[in-house]
């Protein structure tokens, strides 16, 4: 299940939903807002999400991950709105029979989420400036990280 939240992600509650008696491995990835990007001091972030399509594509990503790395349970929640340093911007959790699938599905989901979903990140810098962050894939060509 993929969802978008404009409130703090309820991490502990999400974990409760992941249990499955046949699950031997549970892998979580959380993206946190950090205080620096490309050498500039970041004060806060702003996420713009186009929900109708973000949810469709998010569900596609979860289904693809399941086909490649069969898992028992998976969820992903992405934040929208204003976030402060240390806030959780995205949470991905995968429970699987063994750790191999749990790790690989979790990694697949976050990698695809970051490049395919209509979600944009605006950085507000300590110096008062702000800017939209380039896509990760473009990073290879000298853009953002």
């Amino acid at each position, binding site marked *: 299940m993929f969802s978008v939240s404009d409130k703090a992600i309820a991490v502990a509650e999400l974990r409760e939903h992941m249990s499955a008696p046949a699950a031997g491995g549970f892998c979580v990835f959380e*993206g946190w807002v950090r205080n620096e990007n490309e050498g500039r001091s970041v004060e806060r972030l702003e*996420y*713009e*999400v*186009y929900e*109708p*399509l973000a949810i*469709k*594509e998010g569900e596609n990503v979860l289904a693809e991950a399941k086909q490649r790395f069969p898992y028992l349970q998976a969820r992903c929640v*992405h934040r929208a709105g204003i976030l402060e340093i240390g806030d959780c*911007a*995205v949470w991905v959790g995968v429970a699987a029979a063994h750790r191999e699938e749990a790790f690989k599905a979790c990694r697949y989901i*976050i990698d695809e*989420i*970051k*490049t*395919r*979903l*209509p*979600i*944009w*990140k*605006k950085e507000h810098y300590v110096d008062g400036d702000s800017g*939209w*962050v*380039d*896509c*990760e*894939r*473009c990073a290879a060509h000298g*853009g*953002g990280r």
Partner: protein
Amino acid sequence: MKIITVKYFAMFREHAGIGEEVLSLDAVTAQDVFEQTRLRHGSAEPISHCKVAINDAMAEWNSTVSDGDTVLLFPPVAGG
């Protein structure tokens, strides 16, 4: 001419100064819409880094647009 609703997101919206507008365009494909509104979304981003959706379904740049369609122009994404 076709009546197309164009939606701009993130940096495209800020550059256009508007989130959505209804335009009368001589456009066959989604790429035509991108190019004819380029001044408004005012980005140097190559089209290959951007994405497009038509009526809330992801589309290709060579997808055909029809009279009454809503075309969504997405700048490069960087979620997570």
